[in-house]
C-alpha cells in the first residue's frame, strides 16, 4: 500500500510509497476559495453584460441595474477588508487572519466581528494574560510562537483602534536577578517589535520587564523554566 507522506495536496508527485502530506485541512479551503473566485468572476462578467444590455434596451431596467451591482458587492464580501485597509493593515494579511479564524475558532471570530467596539468578556478572558510566545534561555529570541493567538490579538487590535495593549515580560529563575530583569524587559520589547511589524502602532503598545515574578510553572524543572520564559499581554 502507498503511504502519503505529504502535508499538502501535492501528494500525487511523491514517489514514496508513504504519503507524508498533511493537507487535509488545507484542501477544502483551497477548493472553496477557487470555486468562489470562479463564481465571482462569472457573476461580475454576467452582471456587467446584463447591466449594459438592459440599460440600452429597456429604460425601466435603469432602476434595477443599481440593485444588481449592490448585490455583487454583497457577494464579493470585501466591504469589511476595505475598512481594514484604511486602518493600515495589508488586505491580504487581513484575509488570511479571517480565514484562519473561521477554520480554527468560529466562536471567537463571531464575537470579534459582532462587537468590534467592545471586547466581550469571554474574548477578554481568552486574550488577557495569554502567552503568545516563549523564549530561548537567556535570550529575547522566540522559542515557540502561538500563531493562532497572535492572529487573534492582531485582528482584534486592528478592528479596535482605540484599544491598546500592555506586554509584561518574564524570565525563569536561571541566572542573576538583575540580568533576568533586563532579559524580561528585552522580551517584552521583542514582542512589541513583532506586533509593530504586524502593523500595530508602537504608540498603542507599552511594555514592562517583570523579571522572575509571577512564575506560571515550577522553576525547579526544565519544562517549567521553559514556560516561565514568556510574555503575557493585557488589552487596555
Amino acid at each position, binding site marked *: *500500500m502507498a*503511504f*502519503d*507522506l*505529504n*502535508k*499538502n495536496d*501535492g501528494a500525487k*508527485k*511523491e514517489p*514514496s*510509497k*508513504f*504519503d*507524508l*502530506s*498533511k*493537507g*487535509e*485541512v*488545507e484542501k477544502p479551503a483551497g477548493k472553496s476559495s477557487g470555486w468562489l473566485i470562479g463564481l465571482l468572476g462569472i457573476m461580475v462578467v454576467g452582471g456587467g453584460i446584463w447591466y449594459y444590455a438592459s440599460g440600452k434596451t429597456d429604460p425601466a431596467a435603469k432602476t434595477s441595474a443599481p440593485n444588481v451591482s449592490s448585490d455583487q458587492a454583497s457577494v464579493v464580501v470585501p466591504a469589511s477588508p476595505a475598512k481594514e485597509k484604511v486602518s493600515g493593515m495589508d488586505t491580504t494579511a487581513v484575509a488570511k487572519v479571517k480565514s484562519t479564524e473561521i477554520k480554527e475558532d468560529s466562536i471567537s471570530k463571531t464575537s470579534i466581528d459582532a462587537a468590534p467596539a467592545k471586547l466581550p468578556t469571554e474574548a477578554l478572558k481568552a486574550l488577557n494574560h495569554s*502567552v503568545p510566545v*516563549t523564549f*530561548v*534561555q537567556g535570550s529575547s*529570541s*522566540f*522559542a*515557540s*510562537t*502561538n*500563531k*493562532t*493567538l497572535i492572529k487573534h490579538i492582531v485582528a482584534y487590535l486592528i478592528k479596535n483602534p482605540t484599544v491598546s495593549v500592555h506586554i509584561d515580560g518574564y524570565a525563569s529563575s536561571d541566572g542573576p536577578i538583575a540580568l533576568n530583569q533586563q532579559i524580561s524587559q528585552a522580551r517584552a520589547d521583542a514582542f512589541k517589535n*513583532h506586533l509593530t*511589524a504586524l502593523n500595530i502602532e508602537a504608540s498603542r503598545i507599552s511594555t514592562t520587564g517583570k523579571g522572575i515574578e509571577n512564575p506560571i510553572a515550577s522553576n525547579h524543572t*526544565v*519544562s517549567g523554566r*521553559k*514556560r516561565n520564559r514568556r510574555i503575557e499581554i493585557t488589552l487596555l
Partner: protein
Amino acid sequence: MSSFNLNKGDRFSLSKAAPGLTVVKIGMGWDPNEEPGGPEFDLDVSAFSIGGDFKIPSDSYFTFYGQIRMGNKIEDKVEKGLFRPFTEDGAIIGAIDDPDGSRSDGDDDEDMFIDLSKVSDKIEQIIICCTICKYPHDNKKDRRTLDLNFGKVNDCYIRIVDESNGAEILRYDLKDQYTNEDAVEFGRLFRVGESWEFEAMGRAHTGSLQTLVDMYT
C-alpha cells in the same frame, strides 16, 4: 521513584526500574528557534515498530500523522475531535499532529502511548523518531522550510512516563550539535527476553521523514 537521566548510547531496563509496567507515555519536547516572519517549524513524532528483519511488518506499524488519513485512527480521550494514529495490534497510540505548535503549551510538545503488553510478537523493537516537516510535504508548501534543521532547535528531549501513576522513569536530553540534519532517531524500545529496555540513540539523518521511511519499510 526518581527519574534517570540517560546519555547517548545508554541502555535502561524499564521492566527492572518499574516492575509490572504496562502502558508508557513517550513525551518529547523541543524549542525551535523560530524567527518572526520565517518559515513555520513543524516537528513530528513518529515510531517504526520493526521485526527481526528491521522492517515494519505491515503499514500500520509506521505510526505517523498520515495514518489518520489511512483510517488507522482513534479519537483522543481528552481532546475530542482530534485523532491519533494507532497500530493494528492496538499497542501504540501515536501523537496528535500539531502543525503550528499551538497545542504546545504544556510540558511535552508531543506524546504517544505504548501498551507494552499488547505489542505484537512480530515486533522486536520500536524506534521513536522526530523529524522536521519540509517542502513539499509541509502544509504551506513553503520552500524556505528546506533550510530548517535540528541545529535550529534547542532543548530536545524524550522522556518515558509510567502512565499508571504519572511518574517519569527516564529522560534523555539530546545534547549533540546538529548542523543540517532534519531527522533524529531519539531512542528505541527493544525486547530483552520477556522484558523491555530503552536505548538513547540520538542518531541524526538528513532527508527528513522520507529517509526513515526508506530505512524501515
